[in-house]
């Protein structure tokens, strides 16, 4: 699914990702988020029919906090895959573009992102 770049949406502190998955780690600015429980003070996850909403509770508008070259980075596992197998861990970089568009890429070798 992630071999091609995916598109999503962003509004204020909300990201809409066009898939369901298991989140392992999300990095936004200097915040490293690993708590995805319903009581997490940083992130609230809501699954729609075929998309996932991420609400970043610490921010009013995420776009204002990221520069042109910065992304939100995440480690995820597709829902039907074995979460315990590291080969299934996928690193994504999410870029916020104009007109509420999101560009979701698998991180290439250049991007510095530690799982």
């Amino acid at each position, binding site marked *: 699914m992630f071999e091609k770049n995916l598109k999503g949406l962003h509004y204020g502190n909300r990201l809409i990702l066009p898939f369901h998955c298991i989140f392992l780690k999300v990095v936004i600015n200097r915040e*490293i988020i690993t708590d995805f429980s319903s009581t997490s003070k940083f992130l609230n996850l809501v699954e729609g029919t075929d998309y996932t909403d991420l609400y970043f509770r*610490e921010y009013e508008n995420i776009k204002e906090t990221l520069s042109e070259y910065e992304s939100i980075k995440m480690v995820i596992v597709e829902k039907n895959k074995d979460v315990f197998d590291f080969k299934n861990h996928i690193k994504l970089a999410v870029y916020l573009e104009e007109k509420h568009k999101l560009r979701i890429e698998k991180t290439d*070798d250049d991007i510095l992102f530690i799982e």
Partner: protein
Amino acid sequence: MSLLVKLIFIISFISFTPIPNLYALADAQTGNDSLAIDMQTATVHHPLPDPLIVIPFVILLLMIATGPVFYKHFWEHHYPKVAIILGLITVLYYLFVLRDSHSLLHTLTEYLSFIAILSSLFVASGGILIKVNKKATPLLNIGILLFGALISNVIGTTGASMLLIRPYIKVNQDRISAYHIIFFIFIVSNIGGSLTPIGDPPLFLGFLRGVPFFWVIGAVWFIWLPALVLLLLIFYFIDSRNKTQGVESKVYSGKIEFKGLKNLVYLAIILISVFLDPSIFSWVPNLYPLPFGIREIIMFAVVFIAYKLADKEVLKANEFDFEPIKEVAYLFVGIFATMIPALQLISNQARMMGEKLNEGIFYWATGILSAFLDNAPTYLNFLSASMGKYGLDVKNSAHVMQFTYNYGSYLTAISVAAVFFGATTYIGNGPNFMVKAISERAGISMPSFFVYLIKYAVPILLPIFILVWLVFFS
């Protein structure tokens, strides 16, 4: 950033506004450099500040230490306001109670110089991408750290840190831990840069005052080398025990690739501009009363040009962002302003106790204060105090040279302490904060201010500092 620019503008404006000053300095017309020198003797011409005005400085240090741990949300959103408000308290005290605008102008000059070199090195090196496709081993890491220590004497600790931190993290991505970053801060961002005046800002200020350029390497290398070897050995011991394995099937080409090498030209321009000071070359125009010189104009121009003309792919790969330099700019505007009275009181105290002070005391005093204050003005204040012991004046470059050759052990103690102890805390030296920020953005959990100090700096650095003291300065 606009808030910061406004503050600088206000301080500049107020500083140039004629205020009746009973203690006006006779030599205030001599230019930027002299202004910076005068700061060291401001206590002679101006009344000393009330010790209570050190409180904003203490509050700022405490908040820098506790904010990211105990009230992270508030701190992340409001640290610029906190730094500026606390800085303004000191500024207003100096303007309207002490009526001492000169100390403020000196500090503003030093701040702009500090931020110019830091931001230009940050942007120029941020446009260079180094890709090391090798398997991480303790020996390879030692090679990177040693290389960083050496080049920090050529492109400064800031330049070396910005250039190497990303490839260093990348190489270690499958086994990275906080200690990797902390040793990088110890070695590349601080102690490595002890050998030349370009290495670290305090040594550069000493050079501007008259310390010969190559005196530093001759006086410090035999302290630098064992300290560096000890740190590398400790690192090797710790890193060898890190058995975390990467992806075993991963194939390494062994190649090292560079992108954005045109930015080396910008780095060269920055390094050359470092020497463009009226006190070094008389043909360099003096822009007094402006609180900056030709050097700073060139450096800020490099920031603009290097960013505008940078390879976008490299910026994307480096996830280039001004936030780390913005954080340093805001926090240090508060630190520079609030530490004026602290430095003046310390300087005065050191002068009063001059006869009783030996190299060891200067080593520890300079070191401990450099860990928590900015090390550049701390260095100058203790240089001034130590020269005062022998009736020499830091404003006089012939005196500085005389002191360097006749009482060099004092200068060595102050130089070593100012640079080495900068590694003790995140705020001891400018690049420390930047390296921490870049690491966190890469997903690495870094220790808090206190954990860094207690778990890493005290057990690893303090024994080395004590050894240096016992062998060379006790």
